[in-house]
């Protein structure tokens, strides 16, 4: 059919297009099936938690919250982000990032297990097969693109070509489109292989690549993934799966701890693992320091700083002392949870309620949306919008103190927002101006 790809290229074991070039006796649809099913579950969780994280930003509320305004129908599922349970975003993002890192060895092993297919000849047996191979470029390229941008972003290595949010969001949709097609085409085969594998293990133990002739022809992959020229084995299939699992376990063990103050020291290689910045009440994790954000100490002093609150009845200017004197102070135990997949345990914040500030400017009992602006001169989230349900929550504070002390400059002195279940970047630090009203 394709004389250009002669039998010689398919049979010469020196060429990767020949099945005999690939010699590991581990390869076979069964090994691939196990890894594939793990990824099927894992990547689905990654995709869903990713979408949920986008919803947590309340992108529909205000352009300042939305880094992908031209999303169109890809935002079909968006909903008003709730304020409870207060650890909701912490859990979602911890799962998203920690699971993503944990799945890296599985992804690498899966790609290793199917590499002979990349070089398989003829390049296409039919139109459907040709399109499937194009789709595989989106699948493999998409998977690696998502994992690489994610892994680089959590390490603050912004070398990718553009802003992280649109790249990771639209890249996820491109990848997921190919992933769903691949899953629908391959999952039935993978499940069948797994069933066979279990029967085999219950029966005569490990017996790879043999005794399946009675069912041959059902999945054409078997022919090319199982090498016709197996090298002497150095590890069993089960051993290889343990090895992959061990890699995942090691990554998990050195990463997961960055989501808890008590376990932080166990996260030996994670960006927010190892330890805390300093000690004392303000010695918990910081996303952006005051110096990094370009906060001028002259603007935050007792004489210079005034909180400007605007609403239905006009504008009020409050010094820090007047703020604490005029409004009752409340406490709330809430975490900082970052999109980068690290979080703190609950900190004990103390400040004035957002809904009391709303009442101060004419919204008594019916708090509206809130637009917050920081002293921060530049940067992505120096302005943020909060929805009415977030403003109304009694735990939502403009915090002045944390853990019994004044806020430190790095945690947002003179005042910062803290809202239950909101992503870290919406908890604006160094607040300068608050505008209440429907957005």
């Amino acid at each position, binding site marked *: 059919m394709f004389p250009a790809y002669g039998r010689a290229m398919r049979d010469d074991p020196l060429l990767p297009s020949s099945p005999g070039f690939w010699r590991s006796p581990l390869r076979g649809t069964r090994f691939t099936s196990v890894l594939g099913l793990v990824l099927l579950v894992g990547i689905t969780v990654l995709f869903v938690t990713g979408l949920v994280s986008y919803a947590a930003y309340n992108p529909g509320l205000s352009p300042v919250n939305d880094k*992908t305004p*031209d999303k*169109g*129908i*890809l935002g079909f599922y968006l909903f008003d982000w709730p304020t409870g349970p207060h650890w909701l975003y912490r859990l979602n993002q911890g799962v998203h990032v920690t699971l993503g890192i944990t799945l890296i*060895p599985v992804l*690498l092993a899966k*790609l*290793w297990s199917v*590499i002979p297919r990349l070089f398989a000849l003829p390049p*296409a*047996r*039919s*139109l*459907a097969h040709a*399109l*499937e191979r*194009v*789709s595989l*470029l*989106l699948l*493999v*390229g998409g998977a*690696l*693109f998502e994992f690489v941008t994610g892994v680089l972003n959590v*390490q*603050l*290595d912004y070398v*990718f*070509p*553009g*802003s992280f949010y*649109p*790249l990771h969001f*639209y*890249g996820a*949709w*491109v990848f997921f*489109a*190919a992933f769903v*097609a691949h899953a629908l*085409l391959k999952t039935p085969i993978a499940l069948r292989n797994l069933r066979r594998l279990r029967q085999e293990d219950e029966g005569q133990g490990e017996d790879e690549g043999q005794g399946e002739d009675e069912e041959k022809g059902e999945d054409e992959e078997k022919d090319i993934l199982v090498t016709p020229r197996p090298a002497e084995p*150095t*590890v069993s299939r089960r051993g290889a799966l343990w*090895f992959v699992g*061990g890699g995942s376990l090691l*990554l998990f063990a*050195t990463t997961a701890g960055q989501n808890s103050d008590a376990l932080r020291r166990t996260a*030996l*290689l994670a*960006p*927010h693992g*190892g330890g805390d*910045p300093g000690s004392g009440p303000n010695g918990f*994790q*910081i*996303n*952006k*320091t005051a110096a*990094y954000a370009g906060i001028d100490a002259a603007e935050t002093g007792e004489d210079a700083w005034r909180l400007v609150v605007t609403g239905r009845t006009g504008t009020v200017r409050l010094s820090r002392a007047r703020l604490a004197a005029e409004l009752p102070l409340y406490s709330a135990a809430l975490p900082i949870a970052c999109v980068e997949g690290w979080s703190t345990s609950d900190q004990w914040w103390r400040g004035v309620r957002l809904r009391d500030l709303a009442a101060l400017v004419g919204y008594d009992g019916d708090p509206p949306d809130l637009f917050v602006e920081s002293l921060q001169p530049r940067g992505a989230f120096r302005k943020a919008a909060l929805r009415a349900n977030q403003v109304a929550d009694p735990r939502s504070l403009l915090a002045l103190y944390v853990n019994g002390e004044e806020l430190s400059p790095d945690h947002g002195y003179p005042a910062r927002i803290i809202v239950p279940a909101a992503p870290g970047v919406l908890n604006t630090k160094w607040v300068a101006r608050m505008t209440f009203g429907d957005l």
Partner: protein
Amino acid sequence: MRRPRFPAGSPFQLLLLACSFALAGYAGVRLLAGDWWGVTLWFVGAALLHDLVLLPLYAAADRALVRGLGARREWVPYVRVPAALSGLLLLVWFPLISGMVERRYRSATGLPPDGFLARWLLITAVLFGCSALLLALRLRRATKRRPPAVH
């Protein structure tokens, strides 16, 4: 005489792939709205770099290891496993371990950026150390089990 013909293949598969491409296209246009060349390069480059560089490199390293140990074949996992695990950690956390984001990391997080290399080396040492210990135990057990005549 039959002319060679390029078959269409399963209609279900064609329909499924058409839907998949439509969605990928919808998102892809938005993905490429900024630096389209850079993004394409990263997207395709990631696949090529993995398939044609990373995978051949680690496969060749593994083959060299198996060859290099020659007759002591049972030693292979005791080198392969710690080396691969250590390499995996380096691959994932390269920007932090190599110190290439040191300045931004320090100024953004307020944390010391220089512990990552030391911790990675420490983990690597522990991995190889445990592996060596297991191998030594195994060799010792093998020697004990051997009949005295061999000594």
